[in-house]
């Protein structure tokens, strides 16, 4: 520092600066603000952290950790954070970070499913996911039980929680073209859809779960009829050809229709999950229901081709029952074929009403009496052709006067009712009769006799000719006999004229018989 004392050139003096300085600089404000901002962000993040859920999927197709969103009505409510296989490799377990304040979503019956583009007959859904990729949809349940682990649905539910309406069950022996999502029509208006279907435990029928949107569910009463509205319903009747369809959609993909009989308008709406029968068509659905059908057996000894279960049993053209079952049996001894046909007969339609019941009298005995009376009066079951085009048969229960008396054996179950051959069979029988009689005619001996007769006749004719020749000779114009005959005839003619003159005279002068011929006046 030896130079420090050396004279320096003139250096100007700086101007005074009057400013108090604090020991702690205000600049510390900056890290404090940064810390507060950082802490605030952290707090917001931590507080804003929604619940984590675990969702189990069958397949992770389209699911991407950190990308796949969970959406509710198009709003992101979470994101899939991890996707991993379960320990047994059979499932995909994903964890998802839900948005804040979604705790209420995560209850027992909340459902998750993956939305992918899906094209089914009824509708095309999830087209937006073609671009955006799959997302997980959530349907918030109604339960209050909180839940954090869910098993995702395989297919999107047809009915999600926010749609109001009710479920009903329709039983059908045949699913036909129905599928979940198939529309349900009411007066050709789509009011619901098939939510799901499952085979009954006994395997005998399918239970369709139908969802009917509010407010249309109120039109379903316990008496409402449901039927398959799939495709065309073509019926050929005396009125002509009738084609019934619900809508173009139902032709393509099928459908279910329902209607409530108008007389039932005031009935209370049906309970949720009421079980209905799904009929094959509207006509079936509205057929008068059998009040108390009784089972009978009819044994036909003729072909039952054209007779089908469901064919009507008519009494004077009124349906009183239907064919239930058609069997075949062969008598081992006589080797005779017969077809026992089981029918359900609704005697109530024959006029046996409960109101006619005398006290102490049993409706069964009244029915027995009725059937007995009918049968003893000649009522018989007969197969008749219902439709000439299709050859379908129906059973006519008619009175045939003059048939031998029969009694119904009520001890058998089911009791058997007597039958008569059908119209065609009756014609066949009479033809057979004629042929049988023809068969008995002794054609051979008749022929021999005829031959003999013809020979005799021949001879007689020869002699007859000789006689005629003689006669010809006699009446020849130039013969003596002829001439004499002519003369004789002339004489007879004259005589006749004289008699006439006499008769005329006598008529005018009857007195001449007594007085004689009067003198002519001069």
């Amino acid at each position, binding site marked *: 520092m030896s130079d*420090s004392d050396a004279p320096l050139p003139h*250096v100007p*003096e700086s101007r005074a*600066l009057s400013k108090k300085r604090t020991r702690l600089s205000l*600049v510390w404000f900056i*890290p404090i603000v*940064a810390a507060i901002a*950082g802490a605030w962000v952290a707090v917001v993040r931590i507080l804003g952290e929604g619940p984590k859920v675990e969702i189990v999927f069958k397949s992770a197709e389209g699911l991407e950790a950190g990308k796949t969103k969970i959406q509710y009505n198009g709003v992101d409510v979470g994101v899939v954070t991890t996707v991993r296989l379960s320990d047994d490799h059979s499932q995909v377990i994903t964890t998802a970070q839900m948005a804040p304040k979604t705790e209420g979503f995560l209850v027992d019956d909340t459902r998750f499913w993956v939305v992918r583009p899906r094209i089914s007959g009824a509708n095309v859904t999830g087209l937006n996911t073609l671009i955006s990729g799959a997302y997980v949809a959530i349907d918030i349940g109604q339960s209050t039980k909180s839940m954090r682990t869910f098993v995702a649905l395989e297919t999107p539910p047809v009915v999600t929680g926010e749609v109001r309406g009710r479920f009903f069950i329709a039983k059908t022996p045949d699913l036909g073209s129905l599928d979940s999502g198939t529309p349900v029509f009411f007066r050709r208006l789509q009011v619901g859809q098939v939510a799901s279907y499952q085979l009954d435990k006994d395997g005998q029928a399918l239970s369709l779960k139908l969802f009917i949107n509010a407010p249309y569910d109120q039109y379903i009463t316990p008496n409402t009829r449901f039927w398959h509205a799939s495709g065309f319903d073509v019926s050929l009747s005396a009125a002509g050809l009738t084609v019934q369809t619900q809508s173009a959609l139902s032709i393509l993909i099928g459908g279910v229709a329902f209607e409530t009989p108008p007389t039932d308008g005031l009935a209370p709406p049906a309970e949720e999950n009421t079980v209905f029968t799904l009929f094959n068509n509207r006509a079936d659905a509205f057929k008068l229901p059998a009040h108390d059908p009784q089972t009978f057996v009819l044994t036909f000894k003729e072909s039952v081709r054209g007779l089908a279960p469901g064919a009507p049993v008519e009494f004077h053209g009124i349906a009183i029952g239907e064919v239930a079952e058609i069997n075949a049996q062969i008598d081992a001894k006589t080797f005779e074929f017969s077809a026992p046909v089981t029918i359900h007969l609704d005697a109530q339609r024959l006029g046996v009403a409960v109101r006619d019941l005398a006290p102490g009298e049993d409706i069964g005995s009244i029915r027995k009496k009725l059937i007995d009376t009918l049968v003893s009066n000649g009522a018989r079951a007969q197969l008749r052709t219902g439709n000439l085009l299709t050859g379908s048969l129906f059973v006519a229960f008619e009175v045939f006067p003059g048939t031998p008396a029969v009694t119904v054996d009520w001890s058998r179950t089911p009791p058997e009712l007597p039958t008569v051959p059908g119209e065609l069979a009756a014609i066949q029988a009479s033809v057979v009769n004629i042929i049988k009689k023809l068969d008995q005619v002794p054609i051979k001996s008749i022929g021999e006799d005829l031959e003999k007769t013809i020979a005799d006749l021949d001879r007689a004719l020869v002699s007859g000719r000789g006689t005629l020749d003689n006669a010809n000779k006699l009446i020849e114009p130039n013969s003596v006999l002829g001439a004499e005959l002519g003369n004789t005839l002339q004489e007879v003619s004259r005589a006749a004229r004289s008699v006439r003159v006499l008769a005329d005279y006598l008529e005018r002068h009857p007195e001449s018989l007594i007085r004689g011929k009067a003198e002519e006046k001069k």
Partner: protein
Amino acid sequence: MSATVSTAMQHGLQSCERCALLSRPAAGEHDGRCPRCGEELTFRKHESLQRTWAFVIGAAICYIPANILPVLTTTTAAGSDSDTILQGVILLWSPTGWPLSLIVLVASIMIPSAKIIALVYLLVTVQRGSTANNGQRVRMYRVVEFIGRWSMVDVFVDAFTAALVQLQPLMSVAPAPGLFFFAAVVVLTMLAVESFDPRLIWDSLDAKEVRHV
């Protein structure tokens, strides 16, 4: 650096940082204003260490949310995505895109952290009066100072992208909170560099010399 060098401070002289005029503090005053341009004169930057510390700590605090929070929200027809810087790096990392990914990694993650570390190192060594590696430390300071003004490139790129990519409804880009913290990191490190007085590096050397003598 030889001990024979004399400094302005030793002579009680101040050099104006703006117009480089050498002046003497007014009598009885420690600091003053430049008689020529009016700039505040100090022997050393006022409270340099304290201010630098404050800025560095602020930057370090902001660095955490800058990396955790998303910096850009991209909304496309496919939905909206928020990406953090690191997610962007991962997204860009591909056989063809790795150089770009590397640039983002270096510029947005490594450089800010390196700056903060370098400043902390400078501050600690100056406060401890360390005299070792003085030349290196000055070079380090220069590099940090030089990079400082370019560190905003990321913020600019993101801001430009957000302003330009507004092809609604097809695609739109919006800045996300992380970007503001990232900008804060850049600004605060620049302020820290600004408030650090590199002359302090030599002061400790001088002080040592004085003690020697």
